[in-house]
């Protein structure tokens, strides 16, 4: 992690996409701190601690060391030649975040936030999780640093991600089932927030995505931005140029912003986020907040949300638990409205097709979340000539999903 620029109070050049958020944690009309009064002080404490640490050379050295020796960075860029040939268009390149320790990009963020927690002297970590990847990544860093770890998880997600639940327990974490609301990621986030309000003196809340109140969208982005920094340098080094298009799946949007951020000021690079279109955007059973939602306020920030005309947050659907979220990080909302990034829906069926194609042609089992990005990369590749370059963030591996896939396909494992 290189030292980031000092945050401007009023970004003077809105076309400089690296200047956001402003001092209030806003990305244009989005972001902010929409939380109860009780959380304002802990958020201010966190923001101050993070502002200090992100400029501290010793902290940056510590983080870089962990990313290299514990996470296993840098992750390679892999040219999926057989997949590209099958698609018949541009070259598809995969940023292999699935090769990280714990099998997904989520560890980039939890390693960073756990270091912040330790510097703040907080002995207890809490986290919310959907697919379980962030829960596992949090339990992992908590074990390594000797911190107590409690993970909130919707009871519906616990049922469909049993292996990750057991992994968290093996790592010494307590997994608390959340049975309110839709019993999924959004409810786990509510419950973790309640825990934090109640136990704020000794507890650090590791949010797993680029949502939540400021400074979380910025902090989680900064910790994941290593993905794009590496990828951009790797492209220049290995291909002598930037890609024509980059894509990643978007639930809350942490792996996507991680890849996108370094490329935001490269106007020649097309940026496309793949949201979960579930059974199709027209079906109403999806989780495509940007492609089919509207501006609203959820989980501490203004962003695009899926809700009804009474403002009640919708229950979403996606085959992948990690994308099954009715909001999205505020920076993505900003990039959509600014016209810098496009957000499109990829259905369950398209993601499954991409999953199988990648498995058979390249020997890679992608996470169902990441399979949405692969499906989108295939669409983008078809639109480009053979010498084109499409860079896709393969954000996680699919081992956790084999039971879901087997069940969907009527196979008893």
């Amino acid at each position, binding site marked *: 992690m290189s030292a980031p620029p000092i945050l401007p109070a009023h970004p003077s050049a809105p076309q400089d996409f690296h200047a956001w958020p402003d001092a*209030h944690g806003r990305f244009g009309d989005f972001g*902010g*701190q*929409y*939380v*109860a*009064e*009780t959380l*304002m*002080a*802990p958020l*201010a404490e966190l923001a101050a601690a993070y502002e200090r640490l992100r400029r501290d050379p010793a902290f940056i050295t510590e983080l870089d060391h962990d990313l290299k020796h514990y996470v296993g960075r840098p992750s390679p860029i892999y040219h999926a030649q057989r997949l590209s040939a099958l698609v018949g268009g541009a070259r598809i390149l995969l940023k292999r975040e699935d090769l990280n320790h714990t099998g997904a990009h989520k560890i980039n963020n939890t390693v960073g936030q756990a270091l912040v927690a330790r510097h703040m002297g907080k002995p207890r970590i809490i986290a919310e999780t959907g697919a379980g990847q962030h829960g596992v990544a949090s339990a992992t860093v908590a074990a390594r640093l000797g911190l107590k770890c409690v993970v909130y998880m919707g009871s519906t997600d616990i049922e469909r991600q049993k292996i990750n639940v057991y992994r968290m327990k093996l790592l010494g974490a307590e997994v608390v089932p959340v049975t*309110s*609301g839709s019993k999924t990621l*959004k*409810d786990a986030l*509510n419950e973790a*927030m*309640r825990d934090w*309000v*109640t136990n*704020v003196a000794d507890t650090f809340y590791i949010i797993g995505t680029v949502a939540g109140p400021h400074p979380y969208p910025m902090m989680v982005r900064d910790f994941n931005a290593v993905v794009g920094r590496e990828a951009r340098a790797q492209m220049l080094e290995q291909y002598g140029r930037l890609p024509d298009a980059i894509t990643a799946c978007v639930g809350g949007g942490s792996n996507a912003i991680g890849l996108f951020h370094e490329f935001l000021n490269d106007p020649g690079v097309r940026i496309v986020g793949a949201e979960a279109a579930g059974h199709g955007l027209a079906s109403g059973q999806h989780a495509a907040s940007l492609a089919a939602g*509207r*501006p*609203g*306020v*959820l*989980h*501490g920030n203004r962003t695009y*949300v899926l*809700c009804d*005309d*009474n*403002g*009640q*947050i919708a229950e979403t659907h996606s085959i992948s638990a990690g994308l099954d979220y009715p909001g999205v990080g505020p920076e993505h909302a900003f990039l959509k409205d600014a016209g810098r990034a496009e957000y499109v829906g990829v259905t369950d069926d398209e993601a499954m097709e991409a999953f199988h194609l990648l498995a058979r042609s390249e020997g890679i089992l992608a996470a169902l979340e990441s399979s949405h990005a692969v499906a989108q990369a295939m669409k983008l590749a078809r639109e480009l000539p053979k010498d084109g370059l499409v860079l896709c963030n393969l954000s996680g591996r699919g081992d956790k999903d084999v039971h879901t896939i087997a069940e969907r396909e009527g196979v008893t494992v």
Partner: protein
Amino acid sequence: MSRIDARFAALKAAGRAGLIPFVTAGDPAPQHTVALMHALVAAGADLIELGVPFSDPMADGPVIQHASERAIARGVGLADVLGWVAEFRKRDVDTPVVLMGYLNPVEIHGYARFANEAVAAGVDGVLLVDCPLEESSVLAPLRAAGLQLIRLAAPTTAPARMAQLCESAEGFLYYVSFAGITGAAHLSTTDIAARVADIRARARAPVAVGFGVRDAQSAKAIAAFADAVVIGSALVERLEGAGQADEIAARVQAFLTPIRVALDAH
């Protein structure tokens, strides 16, 4: 003078502490919400906090969460809540009503539209839990329409913010008596008495204290140093499952009367 200001002035003149019950609109039975509001007044409520159901009530504990879920399951929305306040106003023009809830339903309804409809219905104040001072520029149309913006203060509120909150307080300042969610059990009145006294001395509006008030004893302890006492989760819990208007009224009466008596004996 607004209805809220007039009510607190009358309480002060009478040397009484205010009683502010909170109920979730549409729970336990949507069709009896107006009857419930009248029952609260009959049992001694000085001001009513009416919760607008929201699917993701981050600052609420399980009791109010579940009340919200029940109301939403019965189709209750912001328009229903405003309709019930208008209905309530036909028979009660004196008791202030404050809507308490979260920002998204108001945002989706539209701030200006909500402000006009709320004033027309007879709403006096609005407390939007997830809209702190820093984000409240979006609420300008509410104040412009004549709604008072009730704000929260907490034990974790830093001194500089507390000064801001005291300075900008209108209607009343709602002091959250501990850092936690609604409905939690622990409450140490001695811990908060000094802080509330300090806030009362500086705030431009009366101070109501809530979170953790469960019965006559805890209410009376708080009334010794606050202008008003808010009771939410314990009341909502007591009402759960009551389906008929007379049953709801009887439960309200049984729960609030001893509290009212204790406050007035103060």
